[in-house]
């Protein structure tokens, strides 16, 4: 399996008008944008509007994007910001209801933790792409819901039952060393405090 293209290459190609590169960017980051929007609990129609706005904004922002690796953070921030704008617009239409409204807004306005979790999930999905196909397949089978038995997995992958555990351990070790998780400190025993600052400045 060919190594996945890096985000820098995809952005470069999309700038040059390559629609396939754009589609690849969409496929890579849509789960992140979707997750960020979902947390705002918008109506399906408003969520669709925000999603569309985010991608249209990225189209016009492509040329100005200096650091493609900051793209996940840019997308998450833009999705959240535009989602909050829609919420504020909707709230204006409501009759004044301080109790309920204030509570909801306060909860939603807390930016930190959830966006970090969604960016972490994005990094993990990208890290999975860096694994060998065999390692990735094993992890995906182990994550299957409902769970598969080791016998099932052994049969599907054509590897002995006894090697599933060690292969999983190697795959996870590989994952921790991946480029995608580089800023997250997974391969160091003690977590560096500032690793997330790049995303949340």
């Amino acid at each position, binding site marked *: 399996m060919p190594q996945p293209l890096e985000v820098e290459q995809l952005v470069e190609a999309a700038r040059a008008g390559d629609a396939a590169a754009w589609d690849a960017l969409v496929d890579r980051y849509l789960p992140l944008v979707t997750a960020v929007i979902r947390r705002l609990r918008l109506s399906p*129609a408003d969520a669709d509007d925000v999603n*569309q706005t985010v991608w249209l904004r990225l189209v*016009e922002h492509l040329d100005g994007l200096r650091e493609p690796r900051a793209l996940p953070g840019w997308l998450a921030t833009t999705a959240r910001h*535009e989602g909050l704008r829609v919420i504020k617009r909707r709230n204006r239409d409501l009759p004044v209801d301080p109790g309920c409204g204030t509570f909801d807004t306060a909860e939603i306005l807390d930016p930190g933790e959830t966006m970090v979790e969604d960016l972490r999930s994005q990094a993990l999905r990208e890290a999975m792409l860096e694994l060998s196909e065999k390692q990735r397949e094993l992890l995906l089978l182990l*994550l299957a819901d409902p769970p598969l038995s080791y016998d099932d997995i052994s049969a599907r992958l054509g590897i002995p039952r006894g090697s599933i555990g060690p292969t999983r351990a190697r795959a*996870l070790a590989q994952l921790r060393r991946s480029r995608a998780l580089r800023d997250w400190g997974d391969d160091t025993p003690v*977590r560096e405090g500032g690793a997330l600052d790049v995303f949340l400045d």
Partner: protein
Amino acid sequence: MSSSTDDEGLMEELAIAMAQATEVPERRRQAARAAFSWRTIDEELLALTHDSLELADAAVRGALDVRTLGFESEGLSLEIEVDGDRVFGQVLDAQVGEVVVESVEDGSQTVPVDPSGVFSVVVPTGPVRISIEVDGVPRRTPWIVLVPGPQS
């Protein structure tokens, strides 16, 4: 959330991450892909300078307040007021005869601007942008939702 998780913790994080990838509605993917057809080169941005939604606290704002937004680029500014689905706008610092309202859903509509720079237009729901051509160069606002769709 610690990143220095053990294998079990990492598998749990992976389960969440991979589930998110399967929870994407297909229409969102189509909309995101289609956005690329709006790519334009050599455009100049009319940057958003203010949106009254972001200024005041919702609690101190009257429900009847009109939303106002301002946009600016070199030698041109645009002020708009949104009242229901109608936008009243004024182009400042430049003489133009028309503005174009672009909508993903409804395409483009050309709107005449009077000699004092004022225009009025019913705006489609969903993301729109306003394009004003000065000296042959279109200047465009960022995409923004001015009129939300019907609440289902």
